[in-house]
């Protein structure tokens, strides 16, 4: 569904991604892990379209999207969430999602008709609200939500664009155990309808959710395998997981 071929990006003398090739298959939850500084954020930026790669190609649904802009990629069904929460803080929770629904349903060069009359927009936004478990907070200003709820809204914004593939950039960042559990449950709920590329440091979540795991070390993919194979992969163990792999409950 998503295929990366030899993606490279340099920042001055620093090689952030070094010929990354990767395939995400339709319907899977594909996790991308790697130590800090491995180039995960750069890679996500290149896939989503905010960072142009120096070389290499990106194919999504068999189309070359290497040069497509961020918003064009969203229109083809490739949406993302951010590691650092990026929501419309002064909008209500419902308005946040209604805007994302609006963005994918028809043109917004409509200057006269009030949005409030578009029942359909808000109905669809409400169904996303239900999915992310924020129905009761719909009229609250987004900035007043608790951290975990803001993270859920962050993912909701990506889902509201009705993506075929969603990039989740550390959805559990800064979450407590209870909030993490809810996020895992949310990803479990959406995995039947959308392909997920998950970047996450919470190994517990990664091993629970992922169908396949790719390990990025120093800008290169060193392995792409099933979770149980990753656990026993010598190279991965040496390069990244080290001693942490001894126990099952591994937190990065």
């Amino acid at each position, binding site marked *: 569904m998503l295929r990366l071929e030899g993606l490279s990006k340099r920042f001055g003398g620093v090689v952030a991604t070094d010929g990354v090739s990767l395939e995400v298959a339709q319907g899977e939850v594909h996790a991308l892990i790697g130590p800090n500084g491995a180039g995960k954020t750069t890679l996500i930026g290149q896939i989503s379209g905010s960072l142009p790669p120096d070389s290499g190609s990106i194919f999504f649904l068999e189309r070359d999207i290497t040069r497509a802009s*961020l918003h064009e990629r969203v229109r083809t069904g490739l949406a993302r969430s951010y590691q650092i929460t990026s929501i419309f803080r002064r909008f209500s929770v419902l308005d946040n999602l209604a*805007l994302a629904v609006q963005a994918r349903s028809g043109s917004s060069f409509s200057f006269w008709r009030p949005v409030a009359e578009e029942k359909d927009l808000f109905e669809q936004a409400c169904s996303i609200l239900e999915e992310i478990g924020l129905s009761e907070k719909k009229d609250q200003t987004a900035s007043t939500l608790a951290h975990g709820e803001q993270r859920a809204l962050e993912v909701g914004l990506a889902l509201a664009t009705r993506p075929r593939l969603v990039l989740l950039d550390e959805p559990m960042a800064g979450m407590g155990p209870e909030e993490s559990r809810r996020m895992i449950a949310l990803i479990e709920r959406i995995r039947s309808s959308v392909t997920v590329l998950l970047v996450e440091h919470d190994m517990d979540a990664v091993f629970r959710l992922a169908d396949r795991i790719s390990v990025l070390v120093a800008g290169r993919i060193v392995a792409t395998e099933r979770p149980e194979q990753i656990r026993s992969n010598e190279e991965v163990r040496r390069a990244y997981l080290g001693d942490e792999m001894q126990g099952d409950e591994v937190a990065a």
Partner: protein
Amino acid sequence: MRRSILLLVVLSIFPLAMQAADNLFYVSFASRVMIYAIAATSLNLALGYGGMISFGHAAFVGTGAYVGAICIAEGVTSAWIAWPAATAAAALAAWLIGAVSLRTRGVYFIMITLAFAQMMFYLVNSMKAYGGDEGLTLPQRASDLGNEVVFYYVVLAFLLGSIYCLKRLTESRFGRVIVAIRENEARAEAIGLPVFRYQLACFVIAGAVAGLAGALLASHGKYVNPNVLHWSQSGTLMIMVILGGVGRLWGGALGAAVLLGLEHLIADYPLAWLEALAPNYQQHAGLGVGAVLLAIVLFAPQGIAGLLAGKKNAAA
């Protein structure tokens, strides 16, 4: 709502009352205030709702003023032609300037819009055929709207029309997108909105309305000179928006009324005690205006519109 109706009634009766009192000066003055209110409202769309801090809005007012004036000077005196031509020319200018400027952000955007406006200022200064730096005096207003009361109602209709359009626009899909881009541009792009296109459209609409205000201004005074494009005019419009309320429906109009009203009061109604304290203070109206602006920024960041609305709703 009740306040709006009251305001409407007062504005409608005002010229008739003034005419009865044989004081047409204030009818003409009110027209001027309302023209500036239209210009400031248009800036508020770009600056307040769109978050585009344009420091070159006078370029569009000036384009409209000059195109409107040149039409009349060349014998095309119908307002039905001169004013739409002025509006279209300003829209075109905004499109060209916006297409370049909107590729920059922050301080660079402020500076590049200023630079474009200054370029146009010097351009009209050198247009010898149309008066150069001395300006262009017109034989008449567009469509012979010489009657102050009639002209007042025309301007009032345009002002109310533009505020109503702004209200519709901000509640529309387009308006939500514009405000969303102001709030979080990166996120707007990441939910699939082509940010540049929406910002440019907003900038062009604001420029077009500013151009209409410029054409009205030229007709009102039967005169234009390059100073309508001077950077200090852009600053004045910005002060009006900040005074009145950034991103508030009535912000531009209130700011224009208060600023021009204040200037008029300081200049025309000498205060003996202040004169004793500071002779010639009337030549420095900017000082008083500055003090008011300072007070607003410090104590009422939502502007006068925010004060009037109370604390019940933050900027949409």
